[in-house]
């Protein structure tokens, strides 16, 4: 069932015709927003004098918290996020007032004229400080055994370590943007958001209206990666309030600087762990204590920490475990969803621990990993879900062969032993990623198919297009169902009035959920068409839809075949319903989050990567020389699209773990506030040898075409680069110990890792000499 249709917007992209929100030509009199924000991490506002703002050139309207007609609340899950702060400032960058002016520049100039006083209060800025004062956004969860200390009695080998994993800026190329237009029924919002449904709910909420007065549309996003799951809604709310007050179009496009300082990022995690194996090299027990830097509000942090907790096992069977997840509240911008949603941090801690444990037990890291993979009889995850499909043992074997892992590992060790300036490292790391929203109710989707009397088809669904190719995949499904060319199908833009109550396009679930809903809608119309063929056309067998034609299945000669448009025209004239809705909900999933027991995932996506790096001992500079990936996308819905997700996800993960270093000031502002100082990968950073292959195996559970989700898992494949860098550094200590390496592993950090390894090596030598 695999197809390779190109991205449905590719021609529009390369010609500049693809419209983004900021590209829409505005009606006359349209206004632009800029926002005044707090400059302290924690404070009580004592004066908000906006006199000079109101009189500033070009300003039409100014609002504060007191001007919000409905609820001053934009929290997506917990109601802890004011649209505009009244007095209790919770982070540097928090919105205090908004200005609508005739141009963005005039709005920005006006904002600078505000006279705001406050009395500062002590702020909590780090996870460490938050843990000390037990500051959390939602309660800590404790899963697994009661007494973690008892887990490690009599263990042959134990590692007791910690890792601090820094966050990541999304750096979608299109900054956050929203546009609101008032109309007779209420308001229309055009937005760049992964979750138009929640934008609709929150806009209605701040206006004090029912949701049926608000229509939200998203045609495409210029990248999102989780950063537009919740973070776009406040922009829409501000636009909507001004649009209703002024009865004109209102747009708010953030500057890159505002976006990077005022919107959430990937969570920092501080993870302490203890992990043990027996004298045979089998894992025995693990204790993970995770603490995430959530920022000042809950946002999606509860689910993100849960997912981190669900993924500390990565691909390995842990007979006994204790997993604790703190949701630390800090006076910083509220962190949010980012591709992987906590999974990458949990998994990285485990992969880090696996290397340390292998070294300590004197085992080769890959053999140690292979030995401990989930396998028949050793298949229960720490949260009680059984792994049912054992893909990884075979996948890893195949990848190791394809990439000549063992030969290269031997060669690298040999070359490294010569003590030259450039050293190499290699690592193979697997990924097992749970597919489904762990918030069970979100695992639902709706779709709508309209076939028009000329035979052209419209497909619409609750999923959004952020570049990942969802629309392309959905068109592919419809094309296959009706046996027509994709050219006759249009996937129209995502709108809350076409498919209501849609979940966010997130958790890699877009194609799984919407695909099944689309399929359902197609089949519903096909049922009508089958009845029509039988009853009205007198066909004695089921119609077959193939090659833009419809024919009875027993018509071997093709004499009775009719073109698809002609068939549809006949059906229309016979008064057959040519429009249908489809609905899908994922079966068989449940979870008790407080107990940490259940079966939250419909299935697992699997993949693995081998990365090789070359490191300059002198400076810590390095490059990734080769990457081999083997990816389980099930029966891929579209290999072209999936390849793009795998390559792109990997490089995004590479950035997270290498050059993307978020730095914070002492008052909790992010210092890396633009691409001049926050460095995402360029083409130069991509390995020259970059082999991506598909592990072709159909999904064991019934998904659309037996495909598997592919959005997030590849990001975590970049963990192999981080581990390879560490492996190279370990060579400096003659592979006798695993030196600590920071995240991200910038050249500077790799340099220090080498220094540490060298120092440790000389200590070991002295020790051995004694």
């Amino acid at each position, binding site marked *: 069932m695999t197809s390779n249709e190109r991205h449905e917007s590719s021609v529009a992209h390369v010609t500049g015709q693809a419209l983004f929100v900021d590209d829409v030509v505005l009606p006359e009199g349209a206004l632009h927003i800029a926002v005044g924000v707090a400059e302290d991490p924690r404070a009580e506002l004592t004066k908000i004098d906006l006199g000079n703002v109101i009189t500033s050139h070009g300003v039409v309207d100014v609002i504060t918290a007191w001007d919000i007609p409905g609820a001053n609340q934009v929290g997506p899950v917990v109601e802890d996020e004011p649209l505009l702060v009244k007095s209790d400032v919770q982070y540097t960058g928090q919105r205090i007032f908004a200005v609508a002016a005739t141009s963005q520049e005039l709005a920005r100039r006006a904002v600078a004229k505000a006279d705001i006083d406050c009395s500062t209060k002590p702020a909590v800025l780090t996870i460490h400080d938050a843990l000390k004062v037990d500051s959390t956004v939602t309660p800590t969860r404790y899963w697994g055994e009661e007494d973690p200390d008892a887990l490690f009695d009599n263990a042959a080998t134990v590692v007791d370590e910690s890792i601090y994993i820094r966050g990541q800026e999304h750096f979608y190329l299109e900054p956050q943007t929203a546009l609101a237009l008032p109309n007779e029924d209420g308001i229309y919002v055009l937005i760049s958001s992964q979750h138009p449904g929640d934008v609709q709910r929150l806009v209605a909420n701040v206006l004090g209206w029912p949701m049926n007065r608000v229509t939200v549309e998203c045609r495409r996003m210029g990248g999102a990666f989780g950063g537009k799951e919740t973070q776009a809604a406040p922009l829409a709310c501000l636009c909507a309030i001004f649009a209703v007050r002024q009865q004109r179009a209102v747009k708010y496009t953030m500057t890159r600087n505002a976006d990077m300082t005022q919107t959430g990022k990937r969570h920092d995690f501080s993870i302490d762990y203890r992990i043990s194996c027996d004298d045979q090299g089998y894992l025995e027990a693990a204790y993970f204590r995770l603490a995430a830097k959530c920022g000042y509000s809950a946002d999606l942090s509860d689910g993100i920490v849960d997912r981190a907790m669900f993924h500390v096992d990565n691909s390995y069977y842990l007979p006994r475990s204790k997993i604790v997840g703190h949701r630390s509240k800090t006076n910083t911008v509220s962190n949010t969803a980012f591709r992987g949603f906590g999974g990458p941090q949990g998994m990285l801690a485990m992969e880090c621990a696996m290397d340390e444990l292998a070294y300590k037990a004197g085992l080769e890291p890959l053999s140690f990993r292979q030995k401990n993979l989930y396998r028949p009889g050793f298949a229960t995850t720490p949260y009680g879900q059984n792994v049912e499909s054992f893909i990884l043992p075979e996948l890893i074997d195949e990848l190791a062969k394809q990439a000549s892992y063992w030969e290269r590992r031997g060669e690298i060790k040999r070359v490294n032993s010569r003590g030259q300036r450039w050293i190499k490292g290699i690592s193979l790391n697997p990924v097992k990623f749970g597919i489904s929203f762990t918030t069970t109710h979100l695992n639902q989707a709706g779709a709508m198919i309209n076939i028009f009397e000329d035979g052209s088809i419209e497909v619409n669904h609750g999923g959004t297009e952020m570049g990942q190719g969802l629309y392309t995949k959905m068109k592919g499904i419809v094309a296959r169902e009706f046996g027509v060319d994709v050219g006759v199908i249009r996937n129209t833009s995502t709108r809350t009035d076409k498919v209501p109550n849609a979940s966010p396009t997130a958790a890699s679930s877009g194609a799984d959920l919407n695909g099944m809903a689309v399929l359902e809608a197609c089949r519903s119309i096909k049922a009508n068409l089958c009845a029509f063929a039988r009853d009205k056309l007198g066909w004695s067998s089921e119609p077959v839809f193939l090659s833009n034609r419809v024919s009875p299945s027993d018509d071997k000669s093709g004499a009775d075949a009719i073109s698809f448009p002609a068939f549809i025209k006949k059906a229309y004239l016979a008064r057959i319903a040519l429009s249908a809705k489809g609905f899908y909900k994922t079966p068989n999933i449940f979870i008790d989050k407080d107990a940490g027991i259940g079966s939250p995932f419909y299935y697992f996506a699997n993949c693995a990567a081998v990365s090789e790096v070359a490191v300059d001992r002198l400076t810590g500079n390095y*490059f990734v020389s080769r990457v081999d990936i083997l990816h389980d996308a099930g029966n891929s819905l579209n290999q072209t699209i999936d390849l793009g997700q795998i390559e792109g996800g990997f490089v995004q993960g590479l950035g997270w773990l290498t050059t993307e270093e978020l730095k914070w000031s002492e008052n909790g502002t992010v210092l890396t506030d633009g691409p*001049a100082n926050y460095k995402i990968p360029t083409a130069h950073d991509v390995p020259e040898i970059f082999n991506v292959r598909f592990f072709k195996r159909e999904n064991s559970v019934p998904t659309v075409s037996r495909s598997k989700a592919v959005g997030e898992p590849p990001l975590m494949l970049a963990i192999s680069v981080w581990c390879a860098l560490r492996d190279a550094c370990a060579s400096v200590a003659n592979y006798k110990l695993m030196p600590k390496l920071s995240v991200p592993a910038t050249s500077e950090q790799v340099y220090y890792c080498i220094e540490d390894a060298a120092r440790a090596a000389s200590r070991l030598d002295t020790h051995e000499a004694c």
Partner: protein
Amino acid sequence: MTPDSEVNKPVIIKVNAHIYGLDTVDPHLTLLEFLRESLHLRGTKQGCGTGDCGACTVIVATGEAPNESRHAINSCITPALAVAGKQVITVEGIASDQGLHPVQQAMVDSNASQCGFCTPGFVMSLVDFTASNKVSETSSRSDVIATIGGNLCRCTGYRPIVEAGLIACSTSSDTDLAHLRISQEESRLLAKSESIEGYIKVDSESAFLDELNTSEPGSRLILSGGTDAWIEVTSRLLKYDKIIDISDVATLKHIGVQDGILSVGACTTLSRLLSFFSAGACRSEAMVNLLKRFGSKQIRNRATIGGNLCSASPIGDLIPALLVLEATAVLTRANGSRILDLEEFIEGYRKTALAKDEYLSKISLSIPESWSSFAFRKLSKRYEDDISSVSIAVFLLHDNVRINEIRIALGGAGDRALRLFEVEKIILGRRLIDIDWKAVSDTLDRTIFPISDVRASADYRQSMAIASIKEMVDQFFLSSSGS
């Protein structure tokens, strides 16, 4: 034919195939805003507003010669009026009656777009690359990568974009943009474009001097490439009474060699400097490597050597190089010129010796007997388009035994780029094995004062300074004995 109503306006700009005549343009308007807001050409995107992401890349062309005169630039940090009298080519203009431009087709065929926001910028970078005689049969993956070093994509992981670039190298031809050529008539028309109040484009040094003498430093902006200065306008919303654009002063763009002295006009772009050092008598691999890692291609097409020196950044990649090459700066004012050593010219953190009625006209240096006596290293978090944490330049002469001449300069280790005179003294006259590296290290500890910032820690900078100097000195001996 261009309508008369367009012809008789003071400001004339050709965008794609159309000539626009304009009564006035806000002197502070950026080219990107002009394209998007005034002309409703929304294909060109704003991703960052600081020239770091490349989503706003367009091509600027001058004159009738189609190829040499076309350059990709960042429209988000270019004043709209900087292109008055020129042609701007945007993503909307490159497809012709024959269909998509070969670059566009290659991007489609290679599945090189996902979200599509960065795509127009990549397309324009690659169009510039493939259409500007920059492609040869030896054009390789690394050339394509270098050409898109200033374009960020967050979706694809770049592999398909590089592939598209390689395909387009072989499918592009000189005639792809034939429909956008500037005709003779248009060329004459464009030449008539005039300065307007608030944005003066001077065409000679004397006109520049007139403007200097009738304006005050605080209220004027002297601008050539503006890759640094214009960010202040867009990010901090600075306003000036007068913007003096000197980018078209021909005498300030001269590169010449006479009697072993290389002199480079202050308005020479880094791209021209890069071509200069890439071939011919002054071919220098070290200078080429330095310049290739200076900003991005779009930046280098606008940024100038004079702008680099006058901004006197503490890192200023070219500055350490020019310091060890003992470059001098020629400062010109109405009643004559003076020549300063670079150390005198740069007085401190972003501070130069320029008087308010004076300008930097050129930079001169003695061409070394062999460029192999010059070396440069740059350390940065990211390889492409990143500001150095530390940059190190060394000039060294030796007779395979002793070091007979050495000059070392460092960027990123204090309030300005520094010559390390004391370190030089320790090394000068020594044999390689006799160099007291401990003394070098101690001296560095005493004499350089790097800071910790977002790019690197002070400690790392300090360590890299010593490590790099040692590595470079060693390398001078290694490479000469090897040959």
